[in-house]
C-alpha cells in the first residue's frame, strides 16, 4: 500500500496505552537498499529550544493510521540534534531539496515523498516532483482536485503523476563527517549520463553540491566534464580537489585542455602542479604554455600520429593500432615527418584503409600538406581550416618542424565563445 510523507506526518503517535504523544516531525532512512527502509521516527518537543525523541522503528507499531510505541516513553531520551552519521532525514535531506533525476537527466526539487508500506515497514518508493505534490503540501488538494475534476475529468493534472522512482534519484545531501555525497545504492545511473548533460546539471547545483557530486565520479568522467565547462567553472571545481587528484587529472587530460587550465592559474600554482606531473607530460605542457592562448600554438595539442615515409600502408596501420592510438586525441590523419621532425606529408585514415597494403607511404601520401604557423592568430586558423575543409590541421614552426595539431572542436569552442559569449 502506498502513502505520502504529507499523509504520514498527520498521523498520531501514541504510547502503549493509546495516549497521544505528538505527530511525526521527521523520519530517518538508511540508503543501503534499493528502496530504503525508514529507520526511526522523530517527535519534536518544545518551541524555541526544540528537543527530539528518536524512536527506532523496531520500537514502533504502525497500524490503523497511527504509530504506537512498543516501549514505555520513559525509556527514550531526548537529544538536541538527531541526524546520525550514515543516515539521511526525509525532512532535511530529501523533502524540498534538489535531487538529481538520473533517468530524465535533470536536477529537480522534491515536493513530496511517496512511501510504500510493507508489513510494519515504510520504504521510500518515489519522489513526487509534480504540481500536485506541491498542492498536497499546501493542503489544498481538497479544494483544487474537485475543481479540476469538474472542468476536465481526465486532466493530466489528475492522471499523470510526476513520480520519479527512487532508484533513479540521487540525493545531494552532503554528509557532515565525510563531506561527501552518499551515493544511492546501485547508483550506476550517474555514469550513464553523457558528460555534456552531466556538466549542465552540475551548473544548476550550488558550489558545495557541485564539488561533492563531482568528487564521486571516476577520473575519466571528471575529465570529460571538466573539458565541457568554462574555464572559470573548471577552476572552481579544481580548487575543491586536493592537489594530488588535480595533478592526476592534468596528467590524463588532453594536453591542450590541460594547458588551458594551467594557463589560467597564477604562475606559482601552475608551477606547483607541473612539479607533480611526470617529467614527460610536464615538458610537453611547459612547451605548450609558452604560446599565446588564441594562437595556433595555444590551441594545438601534442597528441597526434607521426609516421615515416619509408613505412608501407600495412606498417602504418599496425603502428597506429599498436602504439599511437592510446594517447592520440584524433586519428583522422597521420603526419609523415623526416628525421629532423620536419613535416613532409599527410595521409588520412580513410586513404590508408583504401590503399593497397604494400604501397609505400611516400607514394600515397599528400605531399606538402596545408599547415599552420605556430604563431598564426585564431582568425587565420579558422579561415584556413574552413578553406581546406579539415577536421585537424598540423602546426609547424619556422623550420617546418611539426609542433602539434589543431582539431576543429577546440577552434569551434573558442569561436562560439567569442561570437555568442559565455553561458
Amino acid at each position, binding site marked *: 500500500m502506498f502513502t505520502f510523507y504529507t499523509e504520514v506526518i498527520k498521523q498520531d503517535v501514541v504510547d502503549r496505552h493509546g495516549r497521544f504523544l505528538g505527530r511525526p516531525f521527521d523520519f530517518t532512512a538508511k540508503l543501503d537498499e534499493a528502496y530504503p527502509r525508514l529507520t526511526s521516527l522523530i517527535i519534536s518537543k518544545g518551541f524555541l529550544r526544540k528537543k527530539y525523541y528518536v524512536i527506532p522503528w523496531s520500537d514502533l507499531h504502525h497500524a490503523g493510521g497511527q504509530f504506537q510505541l512498543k516501549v514505555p516513553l520513559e525509556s527514550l531520551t531526548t537529544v538536541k540534534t538527531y541526524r546520525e552519521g550514515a543516515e539521511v532525514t526525509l525532512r532535511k535531506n530529501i*523533502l*524540498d*531539496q*534538489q535531487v538529481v533525476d538520473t533517468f530524465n537527466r*535533470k536536477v*529537480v*526539487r*522534491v*515536493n513530496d515523498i511517496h512511501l510504500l508500506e510493507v508489513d510494519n515497514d515504510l520504504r521510500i518508493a518515489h519522489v513526487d*516532483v509534480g504540481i500536485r505534490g*506541491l498542492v498536497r*503540501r*499546501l*493542503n489544498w488538494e481538497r479544494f483544487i482536485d474537485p475543481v479540476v475534476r469538474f472542468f476536465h475529468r481526465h486532466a493530466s493534472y489528475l492522471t499523470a503523476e510526476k513520480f520519479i522512482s527512487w532508484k533513479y534519484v540521487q540525493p545531494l545531501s552532503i554528509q557532515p563527517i565525510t563531506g561527501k555525497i552518499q551515493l544511492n545504492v546501485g547508483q550506476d545511473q550517474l555514469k550513464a549520463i553523457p558528460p555534456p548533460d552531466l556538466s549542465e546539471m552540475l551548473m544548476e547545483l*550550488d*558550489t*558545495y553540491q*557541485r564539488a561533492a557530486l563531482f568528487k564521486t565520479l571516476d577520473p575519466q568522467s571528471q575529465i570529460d566534464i571538466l573539458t565541457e565547462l568554462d574555464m*572559470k*567553472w573548471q577552476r*572552481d571545481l579544481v580548487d575543491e580537489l586536493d592537489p594530488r587528484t588535480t595533478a592526476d587529472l592534468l596528467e590524463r587530460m588532453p594536453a591542450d585542455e590541460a594547458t588551458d587550465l594551467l594557463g589560467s592559474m597564477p604562475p606559482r600554482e601552475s608551477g606547483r602542479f607541473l612539479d607533480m606531473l611526470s617529467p614527460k607530460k610536464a615538458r610537453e605542457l611547459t612547451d605548450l604554455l609558452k604560446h599565446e592562448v588564441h594562437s595556433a600554438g595555444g590551441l594545438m595539442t601534442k597528441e597526434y600520429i607521426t609516421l615515416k615515409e619509408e613505412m608501407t600502408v600495412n606498417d602504418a596501420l599496425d603502428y597506429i593500432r599498436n602504439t599511437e592510438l592510446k594517447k592520440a586525441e584524433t586519428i583522422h590523419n597521420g603526419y609523415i615527418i623526416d628525421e629532423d621532425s620536419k613535416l613532409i606529408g599527410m595521409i588520412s585514415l580513410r586513404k590508408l584503409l583504401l590503399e593497397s597494403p604494400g604501397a609505400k607511404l611516400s607514394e600515397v601520401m599528400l605531399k606538402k600538406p596545408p599547415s599552420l604557423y605556430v604563431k598564426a592568430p585564431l582568425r587565420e586558423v579558422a579561415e584556413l581550416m574552413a578553406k581546406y575543409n579539415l577536421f585537424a590541421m598540423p602546426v609547424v614552426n619556422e623550420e617546418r618542424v611539426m609542433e602539434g595539431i589543431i582539431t576543429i572542436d577546440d577552434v569551434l569552442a573558442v569561436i562560439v565563445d567569442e561570437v*555568442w*559569449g*559565455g*553561458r
Partner: protein
Amino acid sequence: MTEEKKTKNGRWRNLILFLSLLGPGIITANVDNDAGGIATYSIAGAHFGYDLLWAVVPVVFVLIVVQEMSARMGAVTGKGLADLIRENFGAKIAFYAMSALLFSNIGNTVSEFSGVAASLEIFGISKYISVPIAALLVWLLVVKGNFKTVEKVFLVLCLFYFSYVVSGFFAKPDWNEVALRMVEPKFRFDPKYLYMLVGIIGTTIAPWQLFFMQSSVVEKGIGVENLKHSRFDSLIGCIMAGVVIFFIIVACAATIHPAGIKIKTAADAALALEPLAGTHFKILFSFGLLNASLFAAVVLPLSVAYYVCEGLGFEAGINKKFSEAPQFYTIFTATIIIGMGLVLIPAFPLFKMMVLTQVVNGVVLPFMLIFMVRLINRNEIMCGFTNGKIWNFVSWFTIAAVIALTILMFGEFF
C-alpha cells in the same frame, strides 16, 4: 626593483580581480532608486526642504547592512534566497512568500511603466506609444541578451543616475545650509515628518532587492574567498545610491520647497522645476526618471519569474523553450503585460496603485527580512559567517521601522 614590481603587479592583480567582480552590489543599489523611490525623495525635498537631508546617512547605512548580508549569504551558500527559504522553511512558507513577492513585484512593475509614461509625456510623447515600446525593449533585452552583456548595459545605466547629481548642482542650493542640516539634523515630532522619514527608509529597500542581490552574487560565482571584493562593490553601490538620493532631495529642496508647491510624483517634480529653474532642469530630471524606470522595468519581471520558479521547483531560464519552462515564461510575460496594460487603461488610478504598491512592499518586506536574518544566523547554513551583534541590531531595527511605516501607510490609505 623587483620587489617594487612585484607589489605593483599584486596591486594590479587585485584591481583586475575587483573589476571582474564589480557589478552586483552597484547594480542592485542603483536599481533600487526606481520610480517610486525618486518620487519619495522628491516629495521629501519639496515638502520638507533640507530638514530630511540627514536621513540619507541612516538610509545608506541600512542599505549597506542589508546588501552585505545578501552578498555574504550568496557567497557562502552558493544559493539564492528563494532556494534557501524553500529548503529551510518548507514548501508552504515558500509558496506564500513567493506569491507575496510576485504580487508586490507586479505592483512595482506597474509603477516603473508609469514612470516611463510620465517621463516621456513631459517630452510630449504619448504613453500609448512609449509604454508598448518600452515593454518590447524590456522583452528583447531579456530574451536576446546574455548575462554578460546585460550586466554591462546595466553598469552603464548606473552612470546615468548622475543626471540627478548634475541637477542638484544646477539648482544652486545654499551649500552652507546643506552642510549645516547634515551635521545638525532638524528632528521634528510631527507625524507627517515621521511618516516621510520612515517612507524614505522603507522605499530604499524593496523585497525583490534581497533576492536580486543574492542571486547576482551566486550567478557571478563569487565565493567566500572573494567576499571582501564583493563587499566593497556593494559598499560603492550603496554610497552611489546615497549620493543620488542626497542630490534629488537637495534639488527639490532648493527650488520647489521655497515656492511652496505640493507635488505627488516624480514627474510632478520635473514639471514644477521648469518655471523655477529652467528647461534643462526639467530635461535632466525627466531623463533621470526615464532611466531609473526603464532600468527597474528590465530587472523586475525577469527576476521575479526566476525566484518564484526557483522557490517552487519549476524549470526556469531564458535558454529554455516555452514548453520546457511554461511557468517561467508565463510569469515573466504576464508581469510585463499587466504592468503595461494597467498603465495604458485611461483614467486608471495610477497614483493610488503606486501607494498600494508601497503598502504591499511594506507588508512583504519585514517577512523577507525576518527570513533572511533567521537564515543568516544559522551556523549550519552559514558555516561560521553568521551575523555579528551590530548587524543583527540594525536588521531588527529596520524590520521594526518598516513595520511602523506600513501601519502608518495603512492609516493613510484607508
